[in-house]
């Protein structure tokens, strides 16, 4: 009796598992979880975007905060044991003391320890743009400065600026995907579906686009942007420039996929049912390209991030006072600055981590969604 019950339960559970496993999404998810690196990368990215959204909370100092007496200060040392050998319960920092005025060498002023305090009050901001508050994750009382990653040539906190800069660096990739993919999908779909003249015109324009040396084109277009644009408008213009350069490749591949999909029976069925062309393309043909599109989107984001940071690095992208990781890294361009104040290289590390995470995630997603393209 009891035995039957157990057997029935096991059978039921198996049936449920089988049902769950059969949906394509579940299959993909199970595949994805097999790639530990991809999952870790996904987690890193989620963390990065969450921190980006609440940048003001995590940033100890405001975007425009400057302490002109403390330029090129190294990362502050966080201690638990003070100069007299006593242990403290809370981690603390010392205030900076200028040791060598000419070489900008700073040392700790060990006469007094300043506790690192959590959930402190600082500059005012609005959470998500509406809830006003002035609570920040960490802070230290002046005259000590909590420059956890050091400061730049104007005495601005590098960590805070990296947090604010992540807004542009992380959003530009997503923004460009949101612009290019609808365009590429529809134009590629139309070209593949209608063929003949439409196809010819669209694909020749893609070829013209592909014949531009991308980087030079980006340079020229970016230099056209007027210096008077607000930072938000500028971000959108830069995204538009990248989209203009980037939609062609996707359109071309979607066209190739559509060419073969349109011959399938369900397309014929849809047309026989009397649906309009656009509806057939958008509702019936394009969904078949989903797995390719998701992979392509994930893998196109790091390229855009790279492009934006490159443009900003050369001074043609984001402009001061707003900032991005590329622009922050531009400070480290001169040999003297770079070699004596190496913490200014950290924004570059942030770029590498995010791009690496996207690449690994994209690779994992491709293996999970599209077994034909599986790399190993």
């Amino acid at each position, binding site marked *: 009796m009891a035995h039957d019950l157990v057997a029935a339960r096991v059978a039921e559970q198996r049936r449920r598992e089988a049902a769950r496993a059969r949906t394509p999404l579940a299959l993909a998810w199970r595949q994805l979880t097999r790639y530990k*690196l991809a999952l870790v990368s996904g987690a890193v990215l989620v963390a990065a975007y969450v921190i980006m959204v609440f940048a003001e909370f995590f940033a100890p100092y405001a975007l425009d905060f400057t302490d002109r007496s403390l330029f090129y200060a190294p990362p502050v040392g966080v201690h638990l044991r003070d100069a007299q050998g006593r242990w403290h319960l809370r981690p603390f920092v010392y205030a900076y003391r200028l040791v060598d005025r000419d070489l900008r060498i700073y040392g700790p002023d060990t006469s007094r320890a300043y506790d690192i305090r959590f959930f402190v009050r600082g500059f005012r901001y609005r959470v998500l743009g509406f809830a006003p508050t002035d609570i920040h994750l960490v802070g230290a009382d002046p005259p000590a400065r909590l420059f956890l990653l050091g400061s730049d040539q104007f005495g601005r906190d590098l960590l805070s600026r990296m947090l604010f800069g992540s807004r542009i660096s992380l959003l530009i990739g997503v923004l460009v995907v949101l612009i290019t993919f609808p365009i590429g999908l529809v134009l590629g779909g139309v070209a593949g579906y209608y063929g003949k003249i439409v196809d010819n015109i669209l694909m020749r324009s893609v*070829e*013209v686009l*592909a*014949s*531009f*040396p*991308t*980087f*030079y*084109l980006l*340079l*020229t*277009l970016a*230099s*056209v942007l*007027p*210096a*008077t644009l607000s930072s938000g408008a500028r971000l959108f213009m830069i995204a538009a420039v990248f989209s203009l350069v980037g939609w062609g490749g996707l359109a071309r591949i979607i066209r190739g996929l559509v060419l073969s999909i349109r011959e399938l029976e369900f397309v014929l069925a849809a047309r026989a049912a009397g649906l309009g062309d656009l509806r057939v393309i958008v509702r019936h043909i394009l969904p078949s390209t989903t797995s390719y599109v998701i992979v392509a989107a994930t893998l196109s984001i*790091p390229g855009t991030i*790279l492009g934006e*940071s*490159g443009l900003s*690095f*050369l*001074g*043609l992208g984001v402009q001061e006072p707003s900032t991005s990781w590329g622009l922050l*890294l531009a400070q*480290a*361009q001169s*040999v003297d600055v*770079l*070699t004596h104040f*190496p913490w200014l*290289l950290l924004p*570059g590390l942030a*770029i*590498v981590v995010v*791009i*690496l995470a996207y*690449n*690994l995630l994209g*690779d994992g997603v491709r293996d999970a969604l599209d077994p034909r393209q599986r*790399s*190993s």
Partner: protein
Amino acid sequence: MIRYIARRLILLGPLLVGITFVSWAAIQLAPGSGDYFQSLVLQYPQISPATIEGLRARFGMDQPPWIQYLRWLWSIVHLDFGLSFAYQVPVTWLIGSRALNTLLLSITSMVAAWALAIPVGIYSAVHQYSVADGALNVSAFVAISVPSFFSALLLLYAAFWTHLLPLQGLTSVTYDVLPWWGKVLDVGWHLILPTIALGVFSVGGLMRYMRNNLLDVLRADYLKTARAKGLTERRVILRHAVRNAINPLVTLFGFELGGLLSGAAFVENVLGYPGLGRLILEAVLKKDVFVVMGSLLLGSVLLILGNLAADILLAVADPRIRYD
């Protein structure tokens, strides 16, 4: 095949006109900031407006934009690229020397990258799932995730503290008095840093590509046959597998040819290398229009020819591929 190539080459003309027109329009559309001569007034207020107008007329910049464009196009047909505003020398001369420097760097880096990536990719595929394969794969991912300007900065930092390599430029100050072999050594010495900075990215990508291609081929039935025939493993891999796996890389080679002139711009800027990428950045910032147009044209021609070469090479390497 010949017909296909001819058709592509005939299309080259209209394509280039289209490209130059778009670039010209983009430069002309630059609002507010004005042209090169306008910016001269800001820099040197002592220049009289008459001088500015004279300069404008000399370069034909007093005409309406579309006439300027047609004039430029007309002179290009006669292989006259015009004068640089900023340097007052022929653009051909300016671009020529810089383009050669860039080619030197790009080709060195490309050769080094391929020479390293192909064997490593083969090794990695043959030893799939080994510790070395895992490590190489992860390193390849890191390599394709490092922007070239960042790797250049890191190398600069390392070179400064180790005093092993020169930091900037293509030649030492003593270059002019060196004997010819000294000059070669000097340039080679200066090339190491930019070559590594530029090559890291392509090594990562190429290696992964080679590995994945080879892994696909290794599953093929004809390899079983080759092994069953009693061939040595070395012969199976090198003669039967690698030969087929390397085919798709041929396309990549063509694309790399196309990008030879435009790929090194960041490294050139960070490492103070006198190449085309740095020239075009300066020209864009100064609105030195003819230099920008000339470099763009050169870059585009090379890119289009590279793409064509990629298609041709692929057809040559793989008889299954037919055009028209």
